[in-house]
């Protein structure tokens, strides 16, 4: 890549090939480069789902922005392959230690490394959280409340659904009912299994979305070709990642994306404010980028790890950790995969893994003996993933493994997505092991609690019923987790949370956190859309504060307007008209202007 010392460099590879972000999309603009001497307005640590949106918004508003990304700046045509085993490098594969009674599997598919982060390999389901997700404790007496409400996030849901854009049904009946900007996708056979099973049982389902996958072309991004490689990185450019939807706009507006730069610690000045980020550059050299404001967007494991690794005199237990909450309330969703064998062939490798779901069991049901609920979604494991599932689900190995794999095309898979509640003992700490830079790696401790066990048991059995109703002869299941959430949660009380409703850390006014780690609870919805929506919301807040963003004046509240003008080009003027709802507890427009922190 270009030298860091040059102010402007053409964003090209050494061989002078243009940087491809899809078959047609190119990144062909000069990228701004800041030097170590520059004090930029903001450093965003981690250019993933949240970081990509943040750098785009802030750069377009005229801020001097540097995005530090531990992984590479992908050229999708050269770096990504249409192959299951060959896509291993999209994930965060550096060492982490996992433990507890029900340890999380990390790495593959729950955190990404490289520009675009996890959005590069998410399956692309983009349901919104339900209004009830923001007040779990008030309603169920368990879990936690958010300092913000659904109405605060709703305008940003609508905005991001246009920016991504999200394809889905014209009417989505759950939570706050709404419609989608792009039309639904055709169904693969796995989707047909879900819809057939649910319909037989009288369970409502939706088909063809909501997913961050194009069902019609969008500028220089072609629509989906139904090849089923969503979680291996979409070479087509149909599935959104911030790499292709927001980062090009960020670069065009003067943001610097510094790839292969691993943040080591956040530096603290004598005045109790952060001064910048120390990182290891692509050559392994320790460098420092000074900034007026730092936003950490490292996701549920790396964000707490960075805060803990930044411990310094005066802050022995890590930055922004006066509450001792950093790393705590780590969550994952129950992601059991239920596999059913059908007499007729299924060929589940076709069509996007994500394309039909039901949220009929999402909310707390008083008739059940546990709080909160789950969703049922389509999944489409490719052969390696399927073989690993069969090893657990059926106890397959040897000739048995060969035999069941020869029936691969007869199996269909549905995924449970169950809400696991936040528990203080599920946490990220530092391990004794260190990584290639000598930085202590993260240790993730995870136990399931009573409510979680009951929910998983009930959910698993429900999905199996759906599978049976769809006509499967043999049904097995594999326990697993999906999505990481929490570790630096938001809240109004500085004694029990790390950041406020805008992502500002309670302890340090010019240190923000913005990613999945700040969620107090996680719902039974895939978090990607909410992460991006909250990033746009935090960006609007910062832009409204302007030069005062790095300061903190107690009692001073702002109500940032929704800045649709900061959307990437081509966001408006396309797509189908959406249905918007006016349910009693949801008010359009005004809700988005309410200040945070009123709960």
């Amino acid at each position: 890549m270009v030298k860091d010392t040059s102010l402007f460099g053409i964003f090209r590879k050494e061989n002078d090939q243009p940087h491809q972000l899809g078959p047609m999309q190119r990144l062909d603009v000069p990228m701004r480069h800041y030097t170590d001497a520059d004090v930029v307005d903001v450093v965003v640590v981690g250019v993933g789902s949240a970081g990509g949106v943040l750098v785009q918004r802030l750069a377009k508003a005229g801020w001097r922005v540097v995005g530090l990304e531990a992984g590479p700046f992908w050229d999708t045509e050269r770096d990504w392959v249409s192959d299951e085993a060959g896509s291993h490098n999209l994930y965060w594969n550096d060492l982490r230690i996992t433990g507890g009674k029900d340890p999380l599997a990390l790495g593959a598919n729950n955190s990404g490394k490289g520009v675009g982060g996890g959005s590069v390999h998410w399956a692309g389901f983009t349901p919104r959280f339900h209004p009830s997700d923001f007040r779990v404790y008030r309603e169920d007496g368990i879990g936690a409340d958010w300092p913000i409400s659904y109405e605060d996030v709703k305008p940003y849901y609508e905005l991001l659904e246009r920016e991504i854009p999200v394809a889905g049904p014209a009417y989505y009946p759950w939570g706050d009912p709404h419609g989608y900007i792009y039309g639904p996708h055709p169904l693969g056979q796995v989707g047909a299994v879900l819809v057939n099973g649910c319909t037989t049982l009288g369970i409502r389902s939706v088909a063809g979305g909501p997913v961050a996958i194009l069902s019609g072309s969008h500028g220089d991004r072609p629509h989906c070709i139904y090849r089923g490689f969503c979680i291996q990185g979409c070479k087509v450019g149909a599935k959104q990642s911030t790499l292709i939807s927001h980062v090009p706009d960020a670069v065009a507006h003067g943001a610097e994306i510094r790839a292969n730069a691993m943040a080591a610690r956040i530096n603290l000045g004598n005045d109790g404010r952060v001064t910048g980020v120390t990182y290891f550059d692509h050559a392994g050299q320790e460098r420092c980028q000074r900034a007026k404001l730092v936003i950490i967007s490292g996701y549920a494991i790396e964000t707490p790890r960075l805060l803990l690794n930044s411990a310094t005199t005066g802050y022995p237990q890590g930055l922004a950790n006066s509450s001792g909450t950093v790393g705590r309330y780590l969550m994952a969703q129950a992601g059991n995969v239920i596999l059913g064998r059908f007499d007729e062939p299924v060929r589940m490798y076709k069509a996007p893994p994500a394309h039909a779901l039901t949220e009929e069991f999402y909310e707390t049901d008083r008739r059940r003996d546990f709080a909160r609920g789950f969703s049922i979604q389509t999944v489409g494991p490719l052969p390696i993933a399927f073989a690993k599932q069969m090893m657990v689900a059926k106890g397959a190995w040897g000739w048995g493994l060969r035999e069941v794999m020869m029936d691969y095309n007869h199996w269909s898979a549905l995924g449970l997505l169950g809400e696991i509640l936040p528990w203080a003992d599920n946490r990220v700490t530092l391990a004794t092991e260190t990584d290639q830079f000598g930085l202590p790696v993260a240790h993730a401790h995870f136990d399931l609690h009573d409510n979680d066990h009951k929910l998983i048991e009930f959910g698993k059995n429900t999905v199996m019923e759906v599978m049976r109703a769809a006509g499967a002869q043999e049904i097995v299941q594999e326990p697993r987790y999906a999505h990481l959430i929490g570790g630096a949660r938001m809240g109004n009380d500085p004694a029990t949370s790390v950041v406020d409703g805008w992502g500002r850390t309670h302890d340090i006014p010019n240190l923000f956190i913005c990613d999945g780690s700040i969620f107090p609870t996680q719902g039974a919805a895939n978090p990607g859309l909410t992460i991006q929506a909250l990033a746009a919301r935090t960006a609007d807040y910062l832009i409204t504060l302007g030069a005062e963003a790095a300061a903190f004046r107690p009692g001073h509240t702002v109500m940032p307007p929704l800045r649709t003008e900061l959307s990437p080009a081509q966001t408006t003027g396309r797509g189908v008209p959406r249905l918007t709802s006016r349910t009693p507890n949801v008010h359009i427009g005004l809700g988005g202007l309410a200040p945070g922190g009123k709960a």
Partner: protein
Amino acid sequence: MAVKTGDWVHGAWQLGRFAWRSTRHRRTLAPTLVRDSVSVVQHIREGRFQRSLALIAAFAGLLGGVEVTSEHYRGSYGQRVMYTPVILGPLLGIAGVLGAINRRAARTLLPLASCLMLGDGVLGFFFHIRGVARKPGGWRIPVFNIVMGPPLFAPLLLGIGGFLGIIASLLRREDDPIHELAWGTRWHRRPAWVEALPRRLTREGFVVGQDIREGRFQRILAGATALSALLNGAEALYSHYKNRFSYRIQWSPILLSPAIIAAGLGAIWSKQVARTWLPIVSALALLDGAVGFGYHLRGGLRHHPGGIKQPLHMVMYGPPLFAPLLYAATGFIGLLASLLRRAD
């Protein structure tokens, strides 16, 4: 070949007269029907069917509008230009209905809306070609990208509705006197833009216009039939190929289309073909379209996820309901062509 007895129209005419005579003293519905059908044939021969053709163009516009609305919804209206046929289809529908009611609308609004529709069809054709080119792999993997890209010929099929509307606007009305003077002679005021055109071109245009007015445009309509069959056949080929020809009946439009194309082209050269083969294959196309509509309806009801309990999925995931009707429209145009007179 039944060439000698092939004067289909003449046969129908004789049959009608016979039926008319043998039933003239009975007060039943049948003689009225026969008399009406005979006069319909007479009107078509003489180009006095503006009102019916305007209605048919309106129907085509509305049907096409519904079809393109759902098809472009599947394509998410990712480009602004995708809204145009959704607006123009109903516009043609309104213009056609007005044209059937009102003589003035038939000569002003109808040709305008029809020209827009036809132009949009051609424009759409180019956008759909571009759409295939912009899919990953583009024209290097033509089979896959034609099947999975925007349907190449669908815009031109919509354009045929516009074409019918233009023809309708040039015809005489059913209640016109037989000897009305032609449009474009001094009895009619010519628009300024017509005056601006080269003299030779306008004269040529008037001759064609006059031929159409008098029902002497069999060749034009036979050619249109052949084109429509080609487009419809191609559409059926790649969409049935996508579905792997799961039912043998899916081959029928693909096998029938070449016959219609041959008959349509043959009718341009030969009056005999126009009166024998063209009506036969056209009738088959009508039948095939009706059968296809039944199968598509059945497929929609039965074979989409969720079955009859999920009626909305039928629209999204069932076979395209109206596509067979467009095929039937080809047959209709062919039958119309066979009834017309030739320019010479």
